[in-house]
């Protein structure tokens, strides 16, 4: 394993009822990158992310994070934001913060409280009383308040207004350090394009392109959003 490689996906396959969702997926990711995982609906982005997070079991293949198979040790260093609200809605925001503090050694509760304040979220409010968008913001705050090595954000901008999107992207950038990497899966390419170092295009369960964002822009002489539109034109 290369010392710089944070994530390695080797010959990864995932099928449901003989339907192949991911086919021989191979890629690796080094430290210090913000990577866009881009593809159409049903391309296999979320399946890939769920496999990295132990929410699905591979049909075959291997995933290594810092050279270790997915398990307790890799979960300590991966901070994952799913594309759905997953917190127990009976809990208050303050209770969820305590929960994260209990389970994650790298969770910074002071930072979480600051981010919640910036987003005008009440720490004493119950999640069931919050709108879906507000719950998604709470989840993002929790995920970004961990000092993780790998952040995986599945559609982090989907349910939020454009003004908050900028705040979220700034939060991602401000958390970014040379030791960490971020994988962002989204359809809103134009919104995140400015922060991407690398892009991975996925289509019909296969990685069709992994390229440095600047190199791709120079090569195609257009934005990544335009490249995506051309490549996946219906």
């Amino acid at each position, binding site marked *: 394993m290369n010392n710089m490689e944070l994530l390695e996906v080797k010959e990864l396959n995932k099928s449901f*009822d003989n339907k192949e969702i991911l086919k021989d997926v191979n890629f690796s990711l080094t430290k210090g990158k913000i990577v866009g995982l881009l593809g159409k609906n049903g391309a296999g982005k979320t399946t890939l992310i769920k496999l990295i*997070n132990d*929410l*699905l*079991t591979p049909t075959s293949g291997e995933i290594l994070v810092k050279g270790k198979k997915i398990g*307790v040790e890799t979960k300590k260093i991966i901070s994952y934001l799913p594309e759905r609200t997953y917190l*127990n809605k009976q809990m208050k925001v303050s209770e969820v913060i305590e929960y994260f503090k209990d*389970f994650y050694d790298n969770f910074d509760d002071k930072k979480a409280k600051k981010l919640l304040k910036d987003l005008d979220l009440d720490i004493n409010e119950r999640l069931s009383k919050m709108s879906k968008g507000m719950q998604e913001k709470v989840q993002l705050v929790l995920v970004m308040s961990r000092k993780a090595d790998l952040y995986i954000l599945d559609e982090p901008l989907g349910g939020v207004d454009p003004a908050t999107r900028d705040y979220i992207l700034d939060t991602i950038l401000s958390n970014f350090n040379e030791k960490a990497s971020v994988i962002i899966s989204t359809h809103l390419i134009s919104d995140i394009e400015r922060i991407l170092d690398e892009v991975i295009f996925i289509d019909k369960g296969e990685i069709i392109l992994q390229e440095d964002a600047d190199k791709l822009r120079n090569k195609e002489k257009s934005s990544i959003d335009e490249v995506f539109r051309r490549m996946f034109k219906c």
Partner: protein
Amino acid sequence: MLVKLLKYDLKYMLKNMGIFYILSIFFAITTRILFNIDQSVMIKILGQISVGCMFSMIASVLINTMMRSWVRFRDSLYKDEAYLTHTLPVTKNDLYNSKFIQTLIFFIIGFVIIIISLFITYYSKENWAAITNYVKTITTGLNMSTAFFVTMFCIVVFLEVFNAIQCGFYGIILGHRRNNGKIAFSVLFGFIIYLVAQTIILGLVFVYGLFDSSVMELFKTATINVNVEAFKTLAILSSVLYLLIIFAMSCLCKKTLSKGVNVE
């Protein structure tokens, strides 16, 4: 990590079960009060309503302990909450053990609440004497101490219900390995596992009976003329077998869970 998981599992169950505990004891107290004041027609009607409510709360405590344990198990491991559960830095064994211990604790609490509710409602010197006399009649006939009879009865009932709950857990685990019809398969598998577990226990009792004629007599005779020693042996043997089945199924659940999950 198991202690931390257990802390949140217990909190969740207490939030959901607490109301049934409070209502069960509340209606036990109101029944007691209504039965002890002036017996006008209206008070009698209210007393009957109150005792009905108390019994429905007792039933709710029992049914909800089972149902909530299964629902909590499914939601936490296979529904939206699973996105958090499976990304916590804990082993699958700890996840299972936490649910197992949580169910055990709340089943004991439920059992205690039911006894307290019944005690508040019906305790009197006369009623207590009637119950103890009834139990003594049985235990004298069976030539065993009251303490032994009550203890064994409680243990066997407790293990039987707990075994049923764990069969449900294993059914959920197997049902959610399917890609479609997860709920239907969970119920089906749970039911099949329960039947298999009961058949194994019965089979082992039969095998034991091959070496103990008094136990074998239970398989041969249609009359309920229970041999005292056979009853004692059966009570102890079934408790031991239930414990073994619960332990074996717990290992199977953890082994299957450790093979990985497919969260929707």
